């Protein structure tokens, strides 16, 4: 059950894709287009939030080209609050039963997102931090629903090259072809140079890390098969797996290891929007 929302006084909508550094909340994934069967967002707050009634402060609306509200999407969220240990990151799920094609809620109520339509996820300024202060200033993320994605990520098709990040520093990019679930990417991907693990940043369909020296002969990427894309398809299995029609489907359980070549070239898509932290020794 959700309380009436009070967004009427919202005076400022901050498009986080533009202004993520200054916002009191960042919303991942940092992309404007998601598959229509997109599953979840990560809300990163500057400080711990009050918990227990978070869904009073969240809503999803369909908007037109000029950003005007057309309709509020009913019951879009799986209303379970999932926080990290610092209570600054909340995982916000769309209801999987509505996003999974062919299952009952998807059929009865319909999907949450429809391909070709534009939506805005809004966070009420009335939501308080643990210290009792309101977030202040309404926050929102606009997304466009693209074609549903039922394909599993295929790391063997990934490429790499040198690039430049938002600080202007040289980074090595890994092009993943599609946008991965950013938290899953952080948890399920490891990058090694000469045995040392590299810290990396995730934006859109790229991973980026600062190499320990200007020229790198090679690097190794180890991918846990639980790595997911935005629609919950993992390297191990598609999200929407019908075991009745695929009774012999075998999930991949062993990691994927990629060894990138000795000569890394400059990427064609060489700009990385984030500011990548250097590896701390």
């Amino acid at each position, binding site marked *: *059950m959700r309380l009436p929302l009070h967004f009427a006084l919202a005076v400022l909508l901050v498009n986080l894709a533009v202004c993520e550094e200054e916002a009191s909340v960042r919303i991942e994934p940092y992309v404007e287009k998601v598959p229509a069967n997109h599953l979840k967002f990560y809300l990163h707050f500057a400080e711990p939030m009050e*918990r227990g009634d978070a869904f009073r402060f969240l809503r999803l609306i369909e908007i037109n080209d000029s950003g005007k509200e057309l309709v509020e999407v009913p019951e879009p969220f799986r209303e379970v609050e*999932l926080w990290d240990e610092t209570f600054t990151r909340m995982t916000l799920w769309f209801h*999987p*039963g509505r996003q999974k094609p062919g299952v009952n809620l998807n059929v009865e109520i319909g999907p949450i997102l429809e391909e070709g339509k534009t939506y805005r996820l809004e966070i009420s300024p009335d939501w308080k931090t643990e210290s009792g202060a309101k977030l202040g200033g309404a926050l929102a993320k606009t997304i466009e629903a693209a074609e549903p994605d039922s394909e599993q990520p295929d790391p063997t098709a990934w490429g790499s090259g040198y690039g430049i990040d938002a600080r202007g520093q040289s980074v090595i990019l890994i092009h993943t072809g599609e946008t991965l679930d950013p938290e899953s990417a952080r948890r399920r991907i490891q990058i090694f140079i000469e045995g040392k693990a590299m810290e990396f940043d995730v934006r859109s369909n790229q991973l980026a890390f600062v190499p320990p020296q200007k020229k790198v002969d090679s690097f190794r990427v180890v991918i846990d098969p639980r790595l997911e894309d935005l629609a919950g398809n993992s390297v191990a299995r598609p999200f929407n797996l019908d*075991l009745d029609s695929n009774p012999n489907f075998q999930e991949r359980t062993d990691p994927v290891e990629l060894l990138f070549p000795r000569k890394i070239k400059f990427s064609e898509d060489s700009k990385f929007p984030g500011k990548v932290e250097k590896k701390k020794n």
Partner: protein
Amino acid sequence: MKTLSLFLAVGLTVGFANADSGSHLKDAQTGGLELKSVGKISFGTGGLLLISDPGSASVVAVETGDTGPLVKLAKRIDNIEGALAEACEAENVLIVDMAVNPASGTTWFSVNQRPGNKPAILALSGDGKFSVPDLSGRSYVRMNLPSAENAKLRNVTDLAWGGDSVIVAGQSSEEFANKIFQIPTPLEHGENARFASAETYHVAHRRWETKAPIQSFIPWEEDGKHFVVGAFACTPIAKFPLEKIETGNKIKGTSVVELGSGNRPRDMFIYEKDGEEWLVTNTQRFKKNLFGPSKFWAARVKLEYLEVNDDEDTNENAARRNVNAPSGPDAKGMEVVEELFGAVLVSQLENAEVVVMRETDPEKADAMHAVELVTLP
């Protein structure tokens, strides 16, 4: 002969006879109990309170000393949030969970105090008095929920005393994944749980769902075998053999009942009335409830539905609730429980007597809730 018994009911009988819950704890720490957060709570025997602390991915078992005598809640408490806030001197509180202690009749609450989010454990005794139990000097153990992955499961969807173990259902914050943990007695500090992922046939979805989290469960025994009977969103009820839990493996459940799509289970329990045993699940509908005054409603299912094991009666062939027959012969033993409309939280005191926290105004989600003792038909 088939024998059915509810672990909890058996445990409570033992608990009344033996109030020394200390026998369940090993190398317990006395004093210094601090909670980073509070989630689901549940009682074991002899006043042993289980508290999930999702912020630290752990479950605390604390000897409350609340061992009786039994005093049942005498009158309905309106505005339970206001009364609890006054008790802990907060502006207001947000109730996370509620558990009645069958040994004493005292109803315990896990709450977040506002402003801020300071966790607290509060109590309402049968005579209507509120208190902030001082657990600081009580013996306790903190049981960390292990993970073979590189992150902890932080969201405990339910936990229960299982007679000779504590059973915990959890889900991942980042991925659509579930785990069932079993922590053997004696309970002690550290990581002692074994765990498995549950794989369930979702009757309404007509497919196997290997990742959906168990929302609520009860421990259950059938023919000497121990099971978890779990309820999932949308709303299959399935049983999982506890003996199959081995760390890291998957256990396949047997779906036995389908209550209807669009529901999220909240609590489960079993009671007996007039020679018939019933499994009750109170749930929250995702959408408007067309057959009652509230999104919060409950169904009771004849326990014989849990006994089925044959392919002809399980999984894709599991019995479905007749959504057009809330009661009567056409309901075929799967009935709507009128007394539990509006029930947000339900905790079993003694057989058909349950403490219910319910809505006072289904049209206003910010309306305060009421708590009362209800006897089920």
